[in-house]
């Protein structure tokens, strides 16, 4: 008898495409939050599939901390050109210059938290009513409780204790003026699913994800990239090592892993063998046990 089962990757893909089409159907001004990281690259790929042969019916929005890996920016610009997409950049530097936020000081200073204000300002300025993100429930314990369609009040805040029930594949995107939604089409994917999907679909990634030589230094169990704006503590010293990114974000909080993996197959084996979660290398999550929940309530990605 013929087998009418989808593989796990095809089922997750179909679910994500369904959600993306719901967004296009239910909202007037959606946007896709694009960080240059693998999850948002996968989202762009899924969006192309969802609306083929039409082009992606929403712009990509990049919240630029100014502290980017240059490889990620180059990749972003090439991709936008190749897919004929529309790019809107929200600048954290501009938020600092206009006094909307105050730059953190000290050794652990990061622009990660500041992004929230820039993100909410960008959403308000462009009147976006849905912001699609690459968040996954397996990433972090607060994200495990996140809905596909996540309601935000007029201040952009998330109320985790008062979320709308979400049943079957029926998504409620109804809202009042000034409110918006965050939508997470790959909620049900794990890190391994994302990598296997990238392999299966042959999706191009920034070179940062593959092994390369870089000046790095070690802090609290995490390798961080040396950069002019990264202040080092006494005793910390930069050294040249072969590393790769497991996630790509702002330089100040993206941990690198020592690795010689130069192809997707090796990366997948590395992830299968690893005993630390993906966000274990994220410096921004180490601030407290509820660091992610607190940032998310305020309107973080």
């Amino acid at each position, binding site marked *: 008898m013929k087998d009418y089962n989808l593989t796990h990757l095809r089922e997750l893909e179909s679910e994500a*495409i*369904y959600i993306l089409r719901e967004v296009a*159907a239910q909202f007037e001004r959606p946007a896709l939050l694009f960080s240059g990281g693998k999850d948002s690259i996968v989202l762009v790929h899924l969006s192309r599939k969802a609306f083929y*042969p039409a082009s992606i019916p929403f712009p990509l929005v990049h919240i630029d901390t100014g502290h980017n890996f240059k490889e990620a920016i180059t990749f972003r610009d090439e991709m936008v050109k190749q897919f004929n997409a529309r790019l809107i950049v929200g600048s954290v530097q501009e938020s600092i210059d206009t006094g909307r936020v105050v730059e953190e000081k000290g050794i652990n200073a990061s622009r990660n938290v500041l992004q929230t204000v820039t993100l909410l300002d960008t959403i308000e300025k462009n009147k976006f009513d849905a912001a699609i993100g690459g968040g996954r429930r397996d990433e972090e314990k607060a994200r495990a*409780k996140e809905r596909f369609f996540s309601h935000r009040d007029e201040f952009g805040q998330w109320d985790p204790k008062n979320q709308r*029930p979400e*049943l079957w594949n029926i998504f409620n995107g109804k809202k009042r003026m000034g409110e918006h939604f965050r939508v997470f089409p790959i909620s049900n994917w794990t890190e391994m699913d994302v990598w296997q999907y990238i392999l299966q679909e042959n999706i191009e990634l920034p070179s940062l994800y593959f092994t390369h030589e870089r000046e790095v230094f070690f802090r609290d169990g995490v390798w961080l990239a040396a950069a002019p704006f990264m202040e080092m503590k006494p005793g910390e010293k930069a050294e040249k090592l072969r590393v790769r990114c497991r996630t790509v974000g702002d330089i100040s909080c993206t941990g690198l892993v020592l690795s010689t993996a130069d192809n997707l197959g090796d990366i997948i084996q590395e992830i299968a063998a690893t005993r630390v979660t993906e966000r274990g290398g994220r410096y921004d999550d180490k601030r407290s046990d509820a660091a992610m929940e607190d940032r998310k309530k305020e309107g973080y990605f």
Partner: protein
Amino acid sequence: MTATEEADFSSKAYLNMQLLRFTTAGSVDDGKSTLIGRLLYDSKSLFEDQLDAVKRASVQKGSEHLNLALFTDGLRAEREQGITIDVAYRYFATPNRKFIIADTPGHIQYTRNMVTGASTANAAIVLIDARNGVIEQTYRHAFLAYLLGIPHIVVCINKMDLLDYRQDVFEKIKADFNAFVAKVLPGEDLRFIPISALKGDNVVKPSQKMEWYKGRTLLETLETIPIDQDHDMVRQRFPVQYVIRPESEKFHDYRGYAGRIAGGIFHPGDEVTVLPAGIKTKIQRIDTFNGPLDEAFPPMSVTLLLNDDIDISRGDMIAGTGALPEAASDFECMICWMNPKPMQLNGKYALKHNTRDVRCLIDTICYVLNINTLEQIPGRTSLAMNEIARIHLRTTKPLFFDPYTTNRQTGSLIFIDEATNETVAAGMIL
């Protein structure tokens, strides 16, 4: 994911696994958190930094042992109060399958969360504390799984270690449960497993202490439950989600109907009827980014092109002409009320069914169901949070549906409060 020396995670076998979604209902007292922790831990799905964080938090809270509930309780309020408030989703994989767990609290005041978790599940784990046997809560959990159309129920009789792993304890509970099921849950696929989540017996590894049990462990059961019959593969159902009209020279005349197949197998050339127009046409092509397909089946997301130029928009349904769905603007359904603000008889609500939005008026509450005893209580005029009832409603426009027992996609709907926009109820069409 279990990382063994030989496994090649880029190989075809690992890229083409099946996905099983299951729900767990139970309270901390039944050992639900311990069971989930055990599944994740023994399948090597817990990471060191997650374990470290839980260890740190356990010590801080003065726990003597590793408190695995801290791992599953994600929100600050949950950790503070030591309760699970919401549905949490967990992920793990074995070399045979990928799993999504909808972890829900089991207390009656969280019925709505159990219903939510159950809505997308292929299987349900019902936990029984061997010391207490079958209790009210067991019936409730099994009934909710049945009501939400979960075809497979795995009954785990836990804490066998506290009763010397006795077979008669297991057999007695199994008999009690079967007596209940035979009466009210016809057609359910039931499996019984004696386990100790704490000691690990029959969860991932077979028990050395219960040689009298010849069946599969819980993990083996989850790896082998058939999932291919969970969709209606006969009656063709395609709710139109979005119309694709590229504004480009190359695809000037392209008009595709995007959606996710909710039932049946579609082929190019198939006779279909477009509802509500009632116009018959044929499938010209099944389109995807990767090229046209010879056939498409649930739950694939595809784009259909039709032979004739018909005015079709979101909310319409393309169905096989040979077996059309029911079309009605008044019908009965079972609902679970999910909002603190009670449902009022003759109340008006917005309603979402597949991709169709209508308004409705609830004109009859046939009865409220006591989900512990399954007693039907007539004569009620309102419905409180977590209550389940059979109602009759009228809609502003007809819906195209199947009974929920035939098709979980075309038979389900949600109710929305028009003042707050909150999802207030889940409905299963009878």
